[in-house]
């Protein structure tokens, strides 16, 4: 298999529906908690080390072959907000559709049969990485990077932030993405023998609360 599959999967233009979501940034902008590049950077760091780490570990574990049903239950338990659970399953369903077209695979077919309403997106991401011949570290990188690139791209639209500033945020958080991917892969290996309790459960209270605030809004730019 080819390393370039990683670029295909991580590309923001990969048709998996991610562009419609801000990763909680829209709620934070509306609440006045993000007003510029500095806040965005702080937001991205916080998201990366919490839900980003959890998503990366779930994706790496799925890529390693940990049971997707156990991982999906672990993802539910790590996502108290029903709005965020709904978003994760919707994004999982959309990713699975694109992944099955790109990398036809029995594991992806089985996942679609087991979760007709969609599995959590990081679980689908991990199984997709495996189908594309990528390794658990690649899956962890995709999830960790997505946890910061989603909000950074969204805030460019929400605040008319200079895209150069947003890209600067991504560049400055890159070494922390490395750290998170490393931690995620170590935890995923531990989960292979010790079960899903070995996965991190880091949470961000304002992302949870903000998701519930956001879902109650009559009009919004991003779905989440």
């Amino acid at each position, binding site marked *: 298999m080819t390393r370039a599959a990683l670029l295909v999967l991580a590309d923001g233009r990969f048709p998996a529906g991610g562009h419609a979501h801000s990763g*909680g940034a829209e709620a*934070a902008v509306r*609440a006045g*908690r*993000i007003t510029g590049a500095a*806040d965005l950077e*702080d*937001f*991205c*760091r*916080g*998201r*990366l*080390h*919490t839900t980003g*780490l959890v998503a990366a570990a779930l994706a790496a574990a799925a890529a390693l072959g940990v049971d997707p049903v156990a991982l999906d*239950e*672990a993802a*539910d*338990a*790590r*996502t*108290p*907000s*029903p*709005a965020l*659970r709904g978003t994760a399953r919707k994004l999982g369903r959309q990713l699975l559709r694109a992944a099955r077209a790109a990398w036809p695979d029995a594991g992806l077919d089985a996942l679609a049969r087991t979760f007709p309403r969609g599995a959590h997106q990081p679980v689908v991401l991990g199984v997709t990485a495996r189908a594309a011949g990528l390794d658990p570290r690649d899956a962890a990188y995709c999830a960790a990077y997505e946890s910061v690139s989603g909000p950074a791209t969204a805030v460019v639209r929400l605040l008319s932030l200079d895209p150069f500033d947003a890209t600067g945020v991504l560049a400055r958080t890159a070494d*922390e993405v490395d750290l998170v991917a490393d931690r995620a892969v170590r935890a995923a290996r531990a989960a292979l023998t010790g079960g*899903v*309790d070995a996965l*991190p*459960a*880091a*949470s*961000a*209270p*304002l*992302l*949870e*609360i903000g998701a*519930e*605030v956001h879902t*109650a809004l009559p009009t919004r730019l991003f779905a989440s």
Partner: protein
Amino acid sequence: MDRVTGPAATAPRAVPPVAHQAPTAPAAASSGVHATARLVARRDGRGGTSLPVLESDGPLALRRTRGDGDEARVVLVGAMSGPLGGDRFAVRANVEEGARLRLTSAAATIALPGQAGGDAHYDVRVRVGDGARLRWLPEPLISARGSDLRVTTRVDVAPTATLVLREEQVLGRVGEEPGRLAGRLVLRVGARLVLDQEVACGPGAPGGWDGPAVLAGHRALGQLLVVRPSFAERPPAARLLGETACMVPLAGPAVLVTALAPDGLRLRRVLDSALAELG
């Protein structure tokens, strides 16, 4: 308020430490205090609840108080300050089939730095059996400057049991920088994992902990977790309790209230109103 100002970070312990070495303690553990308090609540056969096991240990003192109807009541009294760096505290509670227990604490728990150095651990494990009810409502945990504490609460609840559990974390005493605090709360109902949530904050925590995605300058954080068999059929709908608090149904017969507030008093107000509705 006494419980907010608390003892000074350098104050000697009110009671000389008595080391109770837990058999499972790693050999490399520091010289802090090791203490495990144990509690078993059992139906007494006369419509009430007895406490056949009520073991205090060092700084963790359990006192039975007057019950209410079929419910036994226990107060956890901190017999000395802490946990301090290097300490290993644990509480084990088993509420057996059909028993009713309410646990509170006499004052806030204040995590302080210790001479022994290193981090402190506070490990709580609770079982709630068939048809039993536990209300676990301790006072807040305050993370004082320079402290480093890991709190883990694991609760296993039978599908026919009821649980009301409150946790509050206050970052620093009045006007004080917080210490480092990591708290993990894990709930299983029957065999199902329903909640696994960790919050890490304070100096040395991963980046962004005080930023717009996580705490955004709020200094009090709380959870109210309610498990009730009827929630399996009719879970309460998700709703907001102000701008920085919400009540959500979990993926199981449980509801979680998550609240942030500028301080412990305002946090308690939000959790109390949710408790009055759910408890």
